[in-house]
């Protein structure tokens, strides 16, 4: 089986490598310093299993997983981090708390071999997106580039089939998530779902005009105009105190 190690500390990678040496049917195809290298290596090698650190430069382990179409099975290797553990302990194949012994490592591999279902990785990603570090930014793929968008820089979001269009001043990005997901996770940042298909950053609202019979039209400082439904208008009124 093909394996990739992703960790920003060289010595942390070397211990996994050392533990892997005794395994006969394992092929270590790549070692990566950060999430960006990780994504490239995963696309290139299509590994069966990855060892993934969580706290890494720029994008963390969970964010890296989000950007991969079909993520492989994951064994997390991390130092104590209570938020992270809460998020993934029920879903990951396994997690190894640094420093870990050879016996503990072997057990994790055993666990992977027994039920190597990668569907659970998807659940890990969902659970992890609720961790504090990931709530104030959104990581998206823009062609081959990876873009980290701080929540404050989002103007509004628009539904687009299976995707959500994230509109910022710098451009528009797509992310495979539901509107409900964003409505919930962005509610702490003064975002409101004003319409079935729109979630708006309320900091940018300059005007609300009546429009057609029951609706309203929002004007943002960026010049964008968004429709407001009846329910959306009620939510807006409550938040803005009018």
């Amino acid at each position, binding site marked *: 089986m093909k394996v990739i190690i992703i960790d*920003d*500390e*060289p*010595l*942390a990678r*070397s*211990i996994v490598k*050392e533990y892997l040496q005794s395994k006969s049917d394992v092929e270590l195809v790549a070692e990566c310093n*950060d999430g*960006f290298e990780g994504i490239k290596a995963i696309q290139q090698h299509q590994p069966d299993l990855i060892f993934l650190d969580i*706290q*890494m*430069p*720029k994008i963390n382990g969970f964010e890296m997983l989000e950007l991969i179409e079909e993520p492989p099975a994951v064994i997390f290797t991390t*130092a*104590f*981090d209570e938020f992270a553990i809460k998020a993934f302990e029920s879903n990951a194949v396994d997690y190894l*708390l*640094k*420093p*870990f012994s050879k016996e503990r490592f072997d057990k994790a591999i055993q666990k992977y071999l027994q039920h190597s279902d990668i569907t659970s990785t998807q659940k890990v990603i969902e659970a992890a997106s609720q961790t504090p570090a990931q709530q*104030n*930014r959104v990581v998206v793929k823009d062609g081959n580039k990876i873009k*980290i968008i*701080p929540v*404050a820089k989002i103007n509004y979001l628009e539904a687009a089939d299976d995707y959500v269009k994230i509109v910022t001043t710098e451009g528009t990005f797509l992310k495979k998530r539901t509107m409900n997901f964003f409505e919930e996770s962005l509610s702490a940042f003064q975002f409101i779902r004003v319409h079935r298909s729109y979630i708006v950053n309320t900091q940018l609202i300059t005007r609300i005009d009546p429009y057609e019979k029951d609706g309203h039209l929002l004007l943002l400082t960026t010049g964008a105009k968004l429709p407001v439904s009846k329910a959306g208008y009620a939510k807006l009124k409550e938040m803005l105190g009018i």
Partner: protein
Amino acid sequence: MTNSILSDKRLRLFYTAWWLIWMLLQYIILRQINIDVLHAITDSIISNALLALCCFFISNNMKYYRPRQEKYWYILVVSLTVSFLWILAQQGVMWMIFKEGDNYNEVIRASWGIRFGAGFLLISSMSMFSLLWYSQQEQKESDSRQTEVERLSKEAELFKLRQQLQPHFLFNSLNSISALTGSDPEKARHMIHQLSDFLRGTLKKDEQQWNTLEEELQYLQLYLEIEKVRFGHRLQTEIIYKDEILSLKLPALLLQPVVENAIKFGLYDTIGEVMIRLEAIADGNNLKIIIQNPFDPETSQPLKGTGFGLSSIQRRLFLLFARHDLLKTGKDNNQFITTIVIPQINESQLMKKDLTQTEIQDWLSKEINDRIIYKVNQSIDKSFNK
């Protein structure tokens, strides 16, 4: 805000009952001197209702203004004035009700002396009672504030303990050592020694102790060595200072967390090599330390205030010096710059008498306490002036 006397339901009932009893008493007395029922009822109701109003007024007055210390004559003056106003109002109202020609008005006018006496007695009792009540309330509030302060300081201590252990750093370092034992046992042993020295330093040092810059830099060096083993070539550091300032003093364990914050910020916000630069200079009577780390202005959230991680440093500096302006942060291109100013405590105060270490500590902790008390007093005064 202080609870008003009448906000208590039982006291409100008591207050009402009290005035009903007074009305009844006055009625009985008037009947005893052969006043007819109508006049006796009207008089006792009007007089006592007005008196109750006056008492209510004076009690409310005590809620917002209480005479301090020697100024108890204020109560007398106010009570006398209010009693006088009451007697005027009472005479006026009765006169309006019974008009001229009613001989009862004669009775009222003739009895003003005794009425004034009774009114003054009640009003001054009420003001004394209110004074005591509100003073006690104030005492209660300051007690609960005190408890709150104690609770907060306990919490801070717990937090400090947890910070001292630095679990993330510790476990990652242990993991590095675990990796080195296989490949380079000599280096592993060396790192164990460094980690031990570092931890010993953390545990041994008292936060209220002041150390020389030299000692603190040595301790910092231990920390940096360990981090460099962990992050390899990615982490580079530069420390700049002139030898003559090595004897300047700074609070123990202040520098390392700031540098730790800079390293975390630098390493996790950028890719590739990271240069952490620390410069220490003497600036007038202060020791100034400038720490630089790279960051990515594109993706970093605009930092509110001083940013996480630094708030505890700011808090400590405030506790030590009662100043908020000693820690500053700024940005220059892709560099995040943290500046800390440490006023040098008066050497003569510390050294002239050749004080022992414990004496210095006592002096410092007293100094800190005084400053906290001063600050707390200030904020209490502020809330009063509101």
